[in-house]
């Protein structure tokens, strides 16, 4: 049993309740729906493990999105070394890929987002779907706040271009 050194940390349940949807949205934008469900679980498992040592002044959303960002990179590389295969545990309900809230992901939007250069795609997702500050986005993408702001603006401009083209056809 670990005794918390910091009495100010709320029960982890509150972290999931408050940030679960944002993290899921980020995972779904970064990965396909089935992988997104796994990345969501792995993000919160890693967060739960590290949680008692979290500094109280940390931005919890930025912390969670950073973990999700790394999980997504791992999964895309196929390098995720899982301690146990997530889907095969008998007592653990498997996730129907259609759950995880399949509100008909817009294939067109998905394709347009995936076609963006990596920095622009990351900046759009972390700025607009995760609502991180440009400084936080810059840190995640290993660039500056200014560069992150520019990437996000360029990304949105490219999406806009894509859709206005599509609207004419």
């Amino acid at each position: 049993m670990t005794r918390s050194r910091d009495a100010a940390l709320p029960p982890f349940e509150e972290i999931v309740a408050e940030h679960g949807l944002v993290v899921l949205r980020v995972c779904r934008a970064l990965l396909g729906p089935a992988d997104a469900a796994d990345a969501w679980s792995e993000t919160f498992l890693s967060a739960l493990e590290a949680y008692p040592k979290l500094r109280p002044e940390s931005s919890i959303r930025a912390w969670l999105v950073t973990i999700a960002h790394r999980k997504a990179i791992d999964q895309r590389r196929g390098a995720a070394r899982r301690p146990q295969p997530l889907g095969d545990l008998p007592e653990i309900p498997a996730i129907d890929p259609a759950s995880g809230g399949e509100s008909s992901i817009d294939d067109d939007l998905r394709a347009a987002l995936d076609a963006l250069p990596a920095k622009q795609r990351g900046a759009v997702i972390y700025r607009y779907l995760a609502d991180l500050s440009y400084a936080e986005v810059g840190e995640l993408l290993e660039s500056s706040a200014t560069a992150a702001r520019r990437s996000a603006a360029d990304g949105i401009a490219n999406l806009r271009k894509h859709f206005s083209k599509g609207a004419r056809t």
Partner: protein
Amino acid sequence: MRDKQIVDRLTSSFAGAGVDSDGALHSRLAALAERQGLLDVSYRTVDSPLGLLLLAATGEGLVRVAFSCEGHDAVLARLASDISPRILRNPRRLDDAAHQLDEYFAGNRRAFSVPIDLQLAHGFRRSVLEHLRRIPYGVTQSYATVARATGNPSAVRAAASACSHNPLPLVVPCHRVVRSDGTTGEYLGGPQAKRALLAMESAA
């Protein structure tokens, strides 16, 4: 298309569900966390004739039962600081306890057999709780008797205080301890709840 429309379309398109505490993703997270030894406290709520009860368990056993008048959020916040903030709603872990409480309130159970964890009570208070566990269903004792049985006859007030701070009411039956003059005395769930329990047990 304007920027705001693009952002709205992104937001709604990638929105997901299942993360609320009854959702599939949440249940799976709690199960995996427990399996990997990352979950220090599981909890759930259960309906009862005395209102909604909060049940919390560590790996060792049931660690807290709380009435709604105690404020379940406040109780969980205390568990986070007293035990660990690694706390998730995880109803399955507490199925047995919930089931036994149902049976108790239905008049079909006289003693609880779920493992318990008394880590929230220390020293004298803990000895009092150990004694309370041996008071049978339908029987009452006075605070003075409890103090004497715990080897501390003059500690009547401390025995009363141990009862009113019992982290496991119902399961550790502090409601069976009453004042020497026969009045019910204090109770975490309120005096009315205590009277109702005593009436239920003496009628059975």
